[in-house]
């Protein structure tokens, strides 16, 4: 067998009876078919792609002027879809940006130094100055131990205590 492109040589090498057979197709083609096809095909593709598929005994009916109006209808739909696609992402971006701001601000409030500032600030103030401040501001000596709070030191009368216990329960 060889690789060149002579079909008859290849068939002869195979000792095939097809080598000597006529290769002309016996099928008939309508008269003038090939002379008309180029113009017909061009007219078809430029007029609309679906016309040909409906040509042969199509059992379906279409609204009058369907294909005449279809390009404009499709264009309007496409434009509408495009404009929707533009506005929705903008709204989503805006919402996302706002959400990000809220989360950031909340995070800043929650995790910022505010909760630790008093302790940190106080720890940096010398103890002597703090004692002086408490003494001058509240007239208290920080070195004096605070007396244990007792109900008897509160100067509350017994009738008030009984009334309170009647309201809230004795146990």
């Amino acid at each position, binding site marked *: 067998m060889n690789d060149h492109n002579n079909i008859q040589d290849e068939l002869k090498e195979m000792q095939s009876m097809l080598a000597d057979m006529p290769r002309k197709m016996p099928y008939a083609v309508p008269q003038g078919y090939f002379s008309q096809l180029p113009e017909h095909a061009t007219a078809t593709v430029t007029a609309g792609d679906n016309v040909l598929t409906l*040509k042969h005994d199509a059992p379906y009916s279409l609204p009058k002027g369907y294909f005449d109006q279809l390009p404009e209808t499709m264009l309007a739909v496409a434009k509408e879809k495009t404009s929707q696609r533009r506005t929705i992402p903008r709204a989503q971006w805006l919402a996302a940006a706002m959400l990000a701001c809220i989360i950031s601000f909340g995070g800043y409030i929650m995790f910022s130094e505010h909760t630790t500032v008093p302790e940190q600030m106080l720890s940096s103030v010398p103890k002597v100055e703090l004692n002086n401040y408490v003494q001058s501001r509240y007239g208290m000596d920080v070195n004096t131990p605070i007396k244990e709070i007792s109900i008897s030191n509160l100067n509350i009368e017994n009738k008030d205590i009984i009334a309170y216990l009647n309201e809230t329960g004795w146990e």
Partner: protein
Amino acid sequence: MPDENDRLNDHMLVVSFKNEQLKETAFTQLVRKYQERLYWHIRRMVVVHEDANDILQNVFIKVWKNLGEFREEALLYTWLYRIATNETLTWIEQQKKHTSVSLSGDENILTEQLASQKDYSPHKIEWKLQQAILSLPDKQRLVFNLRYYDEMPYEQMSELLGTSAGALKASYHHAVKKVETMLLEG
């Protein structure tokens, strides 16, 4: 197989098609140049003229839609054959689905269609040959037709069908033997 002049001509057709002002003229020339080869490629597979015509027109619609993006990495000739082959095989598959409930097999349907052709004569050798070719499975029939009628080189057929040249050669030789057997039996 296109020669150098053909390739240059094809290149000019593609370039012209991409020019909006020359598009329709280039397309008409392309159809004129390839219509018969593509038509017969399809008709040998589907037998009936009306079916071949429908498929061919679908092929040209696809060409119209896609030639603008054709990068000429393959020959225009191969590209056109690929579209025609795909369209034909898709059509055949659809027909099989439609007729799957009928009692007749695919081969019988094709035989009936062959017998309904104008000037059909079961005793004439050219019709006997067609009958024998129609007995081949679709893919093998495609390979046989591309080689026997279109004289397509195996390498190009390989590019077209995505099968190795060796496998195509084996398929063709097997098909030739089957057709011979059918002719001798008939």
